Structures are given as C-alpha cells and as structure tokens.
C-alpha cells in the first residue's frame, strides 16, 4: 500500500512535536533552581528548547533525507528540475520564524518584567519617595542635595545642580565601616548620574509586587582581584561567604575595586557585572536551601578562575542564628582583622590561599605567581 505524502507529513509532524515537547522538559541541562527568579527563567528556557529541538530536527532531517534521497545516481548527468522559487513557500518560511521570535521576545519580556528587569525606581519613584528616606531605597537619593557628594571625589567634576546618584550611593555604602575599609584601599571616584546610556547601572530590581518596598535584606558586595567581600549593613557583619535566608527578598549592591568582576550564582540564574566607578544592584528571592558557588564571570586577571566563594541558602532561623554567631565573632576580633584582605600588604600566595583551598589548586601553582600586575 502506498501512503500518500500528506499523511507522511502529518505523521512526521506529530512525532517531531512530541519529541520536541518531551526533550524541552527533560533536557537536564540546568542546575537546581534555587531562587524564585530561576524558576521563571527555566520556564523560558524550556520553551525555547522545545522550539529549538523542533527546528533542529527539521533542518537536520531535511539535510540528511536530501543527501540520501536525491543523491545523484551514477550515469545520470541530467540537471534537476529548474525550480527557482515559490512565493507562498517563501512567505511561509519568513513568517513562521518571525512569529516564533516575536513569541519568544514577548515571553522573555514578560519574564524579564517578572524578575524585576524593569525596576522603574529611577524614573517613577523619585518624586514620591522623597520624604521617606531609607538606605535601601535608592530612589531616595534623588531628594538629597549634592553637597556632600562632591567633596569625596578625587577629580573635580564640574559643578552641577543635579544630584550625583552614584556618589550618594557610594557615600551610603561607606557608612558601613567594613566596606569603607576595603574601598579606601583604592579609592575610586564615583561617576555622576549623568543621563544617557547606562551610567547608574540599572539591573535586576524588585519583582513587580515588591516595587516601592525596600528589600528585606541588604548585602553590599565588593569584588576585588580575586575575592568577594560581603557586608551586611543591617547587622554590620563582614564576611567572605554569603548567607541568605529562604523566602526573604535580598538586595545586593555591588561595586568593584580594581577591574570589572561579575557576580554569578548559576543556581539563581542571575548575573551582574561589578564595575569600578559604578554601583549596580540585583534583587532576588532565595527558595531552595543548599550551598551554591558564587562565581566571578568576567575575566579579571590570571586568577579569575579562582575567584569563587560559597553562597549558603538556609532557613530564616538558621540564617538568624548565623548572624548572631558572626556578631559574636566580630566583637571578639577588631575590625581591621575582619577585613583581612588588604591586597597591597599580602603576597599573592597569602592573598589567594583562603580563596583557592577548596578549588583543587595546588600550592605549587600559587608559588608560580610572581606578580598579579606586571607593568
């Protein structure tokens, strides 16, 4: 019996769809989703994976089918049929990819909005939050006057009546003694909040339902060659390891001391560059307990690969307990030791040792380090 080609097309279409749908859900390509944001991003990825699998199988299928089916038989020196085009077909394969990418764009747009990509504080919040000044609400900075900000810059910025948003955020961060100690090691002036493309780094802000509310936990993060430093301004703790509680929205304010670093926790699906001279922030809500690795994702020098630390996601009770322990510990040792990392006073081996010990780096490797900077 000869099966008509339309039936074949239908059957192949059904099989292709089923395989794509199955693989899109069962690819096993992503690590645990440990934040609320991660779940949304994974949904987007799985959808893209379904579409991609379908397109991949279709194209490779046609390619291999043609190679076999339309192979030149020996002795046949004729040309193929002179088909030069087919307008409806061409419209179809222009329209379908167009629809697919529009669909993916809309879905991405939605996810991006949900995870707080469109944090509107810089534009909308400013006038409203003027009265309620709070450190965790960047919008408040608009209401302040610029006076104190200018004093701290190394180079003279031309006088301006506009507030310097970056400088004010930096000043806020400097209220925290641990952050100040680190940042004073290599003072980098803050850029003015000039209008235009990307000067205050806008990043992932609060999810739409949290807009206007301060995050429940604030962590200041400083990246420096080759370590991450965390300060918890609410409690004054300084650590080299980050702890966050499940279910509370966390805001990370970050900057970098020397070169560009990038904050990446694969399980959170979030990444943000920490850029010297800029402040950037991300907000997220941890959801799955566990120890995850915080990875520096921007090339920052020879030991870039070693710039990693632990992020511990734990229950709120465990987190509070950890805070108490840290407070006791920091009362016992003076602050200068809590901020143990002052790169200028340490040899590279000493400096890197605490960060590399779990990473399978042999001591010999560290001994090979001559200088991190060779001018």
């Amino acid at each position, binding site marked *: 019996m000869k099966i008509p080609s339309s039936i074949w097309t239908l059957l192949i279409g059904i099989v292709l769809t089923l395989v794509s749908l199955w693989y899109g859900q069962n690819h096993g390509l992503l690590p645990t989703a440990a934040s609320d944001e991660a779940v949304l991003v994974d949904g*987007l990825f799985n959808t*893209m994976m379904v579409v991609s699998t379908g397109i991949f199988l279709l194209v490779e299928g046609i390619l291999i089918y043609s190679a076999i089916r*339309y192979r030149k038989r*020996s002795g046949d020196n004729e040309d193929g049929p002179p*088909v030069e085009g087919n307008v409806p077909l061409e419209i179809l394969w222009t329209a379908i990819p167009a629809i697919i990418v529009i669909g*993916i764009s809309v879905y991405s747009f939605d996810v991006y909005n949900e995870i707080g990509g469109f944090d509107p504080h810089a534009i909308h919040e400013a006038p409203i939050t003027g009265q309620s000044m709070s450190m965790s609400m960047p919008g408040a900075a608009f209401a302040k006057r610029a006076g104190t900000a200018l004093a701290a810059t190394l180079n003279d910025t031309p006088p301006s009546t506009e507030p310097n948003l970056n400088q004010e955020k930096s000043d806020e961060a400097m209220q925290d003694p641990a952050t100040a100690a680190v940042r004073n090691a290599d003072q980098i002036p803050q850029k003015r909040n000039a209008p235009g493309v990307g000067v205050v*780094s*806008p990043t992932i802000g609060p999810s739409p339902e949290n807009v206007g509310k301060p995050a429940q936990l604030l962590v200041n993060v400083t990246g420096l060659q080759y370590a991450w430093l965390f300060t918890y301004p609410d409690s004054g703790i300084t650590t080299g390891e980050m702890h966050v509680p499940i279910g509370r929205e966390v805001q990370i304010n970050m900057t970098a001391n020397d070169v560009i670093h990038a904050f990446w926790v694969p399980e959170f699906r979030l990444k943000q560059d920490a850029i*010297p001279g800029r402040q950037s922030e991300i907000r997220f809500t941890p959801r799955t307990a566990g120890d995850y690795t915080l990875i520096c994702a921007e090339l920052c*020098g020879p030991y870039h690969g070693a710039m990693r630390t632990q992020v511990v996601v734990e229950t709120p009770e465990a987190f509070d307990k950890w805070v108490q322990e840290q407070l006791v510990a920091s009362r016992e040792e003076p602050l200068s030791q809590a901020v143990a990392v002052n790169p200028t006073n340490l040899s590279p081996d000493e400096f890197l040792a605490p960060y590399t010990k779990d990473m399978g780096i042999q001591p010999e490797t560290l001994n090979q380090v001559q200088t991190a900077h060779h001018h």
Partner: protein
Amino acid sequence: MTQAQLQETANIPALSEEPGIRKWQDYFTFNTDHKVIGIQYLVTTFIFYCIGGVLADLVRTELRTPEVDFVTPEVYNSLFTLHATIMIFLWIVPAGAGFANFLIPLMIGAKDMAFPRLNAVAFWMIPPSGLLLIASLVVGDAPDAGWTSYPPLSLVTGQVGEGIWIMSVLLLGTSSILGAINFLVTLLRMRIPGMGFNQMPLFCWAMFATSALTLVSTPVLAAGLILLAFDLLAGTTFFNPTGGGDPVVYQHMFWFYSHPAVYIMILPFFGAISEVIPVHSRKPVFGYKAIAYSSLAISFLGLIVWAHHMFTSGIPGWLRMFFMITTMIIAVPTGIKIFSWLATMWGGKIRLNSAMLFAMGFVGTFVIGGISGVMLAAVPFDIHVHDTYFVVAHLHYVLFGGSVLGIYAAIYHWFPKMTGRMLNEFWGKVHFGLTIVGLNMTFLPMHKLGMMGMNRRVAQYDPKFTFLNEICTIGAYILAVSTFPFIFNAIWSWLYGEKAGNNPWRALTLEWMTTSPPAIENFDKTPVLATGPYDYGLEKAKEGVPLSDPDPVLSAGPNSVLRAEPDPAVAANPEDRK
C-alpha cells in the same frame, strides 16, 4: 564572445604552458594581480589558522584537568587571547577577503580589481601585524586581557603586550577597510555590460553586504582602540575609572564593530555556500532574490544589535529589550537563507563530493549556532549564560561550523579554478569526516558546561566538570588531526593532482568560463552573458538563449553545460570517470 563560445574555448584542458600559470616566486612579491593577491591572502591566513589551532589545543590541554597544571595562569590567558585574536582578525576575516579578491573580478567579467595597487597594500599589512602578535608571545609579554581587551583590566596587565595587540589590530582593521573600499568600487563599476545587480552571482551580493558593513563599523573600533592606547600609554582616562573614565563606553565602541564583525566573518561564506549548493545539486538556487536581499538585511540589522554583548554590564532595562528584539529579528533573514539552501537541494541531483559535503556540514552545524544565538538574545536566559562556556559553544558553532566549514567548501569548490588541478576526493572525505566528528565532540558538550556553571576564560574549574572537559579536549585533538589530510592533499594536488579542465563542475558563473588557472587579465575578450548564474536544468541554458546578447547562441562545445555530455578526456565530473 558569448558565454557559450567562451565555454567552448574554456573546455580545453589546462596545460602547464597556459599563461595563467605563474611562477611560485610571484606569490612572494608585491604583485598586483587580484588572483595572486587572493591566493596570498588564503595561504597566509591558513598559516595563521594553523597557529591559532595550535594555541587552541594548548588551551584545551590545560583544560583537560581542573587544576592549572600545564601552563601558568598568566600564560593561559595569553593563549586564549592570542587564539581568539588570530582566529578572528588573521584567519576568518582576511580569508573572506582572499576569496573575494580571487573571485569577484572573475565573477563579474572584470580584468582586475578597481584599485590593484591598493589591493596589494591591503594584503601586505597582514603579515607584519600577524608577526607582531606572535612576536609578543616570543618576547614573553603577550596580551592577556582577552580578545575583547576590556579596560580597566587591559590597562593593568602588561603594557607591552597590550600595546602590541592594539597596534596589530589597528593595522588589520586598516587592511580590511582598504579591502572593503576596493570590493565595493569593483562591484559597482566593473561589472560587464549586461550584468545588472540581479544577474550577479550571490557571492558578489554577499561581499557587497560585507564590505558595506566593514566600512561603517571598523572605524569605530579603530577609534576605541586609539583611545584605549592613550589610556594605556599616555595616562589619559577615557575608560579608566580611577580618573573618572567609564569602562562601559569602551564596551559600546568595541561591540559596535565586533558584533558586526561576526557578520563580516560569516556573510562571505553564506555567499560561497550559495554558489556551491546549486552547482553540486544541479538546480537553480531557490529564491535568488531572497538570498541576495537577506544579505543586505543582515548587514543592516547587524549594526543595531551590539549591546546584546552587554546585557549584564549595566544598560537600562528598555535598552536591553530594544537590543533583544533587533537581535531576534536577525534570525529571520538567516532562516530564509537556510531554508532556501535546503529547497535548492530538494529534488536535485546531489553530487556528494567534498565541496558539497562541507557545504551541507556548514548548513547542519550553523543551524545549531543560530538556534543558540536566538536563545542568547533572550535577555533573562542570556543573563544566566553570558560569559560561560555556553557562549563559547555558540560562537564556535557559528565560527567553526559556519565560517571554517564554509571556507573548506569554498576551497574544495574553487581549488580547480585556482590551480588547474583537482583535490583528491578520498582524502577530502576523510578530512570532512574527521572535522565533523571533532567539531561536535569539542563544542557540543560546552553548551551543558556553560549552563551548569562553568565560566569562560578560566584555567581552573570545578572538578565536577572534568568528564565533559575531557571529551572536549579529545575532540580538539581530533580537529587538529583532521587538518593534516587537508594540508597534504592541498600541497600534493597543487603539484601533481589530476588536471581539472576549466570547468570541472559544469558551473554557469563566469569564473568558470576562462582557463584554469585564469590568464593574467582573466578573459580574452569581454564576456557576454548567455545564461543566468544558476540556470541549471532551464531551457534557456540548454538552448543557450543569451541574456544580453542579441544573437542567439546555438552551438555548444563538447562537455559544455549546454550539452551535458562529459568529455572523457577531461575531469568533467570526476566521480563518473572510470
């Protein structure tokens, strides 16, 4: 002469006394013949490819184990910086110019490029800049801030290496600007009468789009690099935050060139593939205009997508959405090309020779790179995988699976024209098989590595990734081995290979209507078009109805396209000859 008459004379087997054969010394001189320059480009860039490949295998050797145990981390950074710089600026980009130099004048019936001396100047900037880069490795102060050379890192690593890097890339950029001007003027002014834009072979369309893109974007890179050089050497602070500069501005300037550069790297080979597939499928190219205009669309859209490299470096939310959408849209013209190639093959009489196999390999692997590219355009997902091995996988599927396989397809296709001899088919197929296996083994696992948490540009990584890295490294060794059959095949065949005849593939584009290799000024008389470039199977090709010549062409020589009967004396269709 009409195309058919040309065809007649062209079918005489190439003899060594032909005027087209040059002395080997010509290739080491300041020669202004576009064919000599084309081959100079191709051979030089291939040598750089081999060097870049050795560096890649050193990188992969380091990554076999999670520890840094093969080279020091500083050297590791220099290795991948030079690998990428060499592959991009000294291989893929100038290799496209090499084919364009050889083919454009032949394809449009011109005697040479519009500015032959400028052409030679453009080529001769390449060897010194390449040597400069390699010298930096030898003096032990190689650039190590990545091929993107982001400040402030590039300002605090070695000054000598970074300075050399800037100098070398500036020279290479100048070379490609000069080349682009030449291609544009040649295409606009030197076509034979009767060849409108819509009668041009698709490779010419692709080079037209590429050159326009080069002219617009390269100067911006040059500006960025000059400012960076001031920061590095003169202490200015354009990009240096310690003086109030902004490193993100550098990123904008850099990517304003370097994203379009991706299309500068791939468009010429889209063009080459559009030539190879119809000839070896014996069918007209499906959707000529769609393929031609989609090159222009890609080159225009290519200019407005650069910030998708900066989704995590801090640009406003709405701008990320703008760049997401423009990036996504590029998938449409690219998709049009892919489907048109598939439709060209569909129902044809496909010759599965090496050129065609590489062309099909190109389509099959490029699709993977294209799909992961659309995924990367989706901002929330890109935020997760930016600067990870997912990106490394994506870019190699595009650049290796796309550009490099495209170059190989083009070499197997035009080698007979360039040298008058055929490449050996058996070794060509061995080369193809090893390349495809090695390519997928090296780069497919990298997708998973990146998503699971392996960042790029690291000499040491989490031990849980050891197994996949082991596979990648073995794949990279297979890739290295795969080039040997090709190198020996090319050298041996050039010297002793089977004589090709002038049109072994019975192709219809003009470059096949002259001797192989072509004589000094290409054609005895200005050719006249008798058929379109892809009229396979059409009556007008069979009867030889001219497109621009009022006198109908009636006769066709032995072994001509117009008769489709191979002359047993000539390698008309090598796999048929027994």
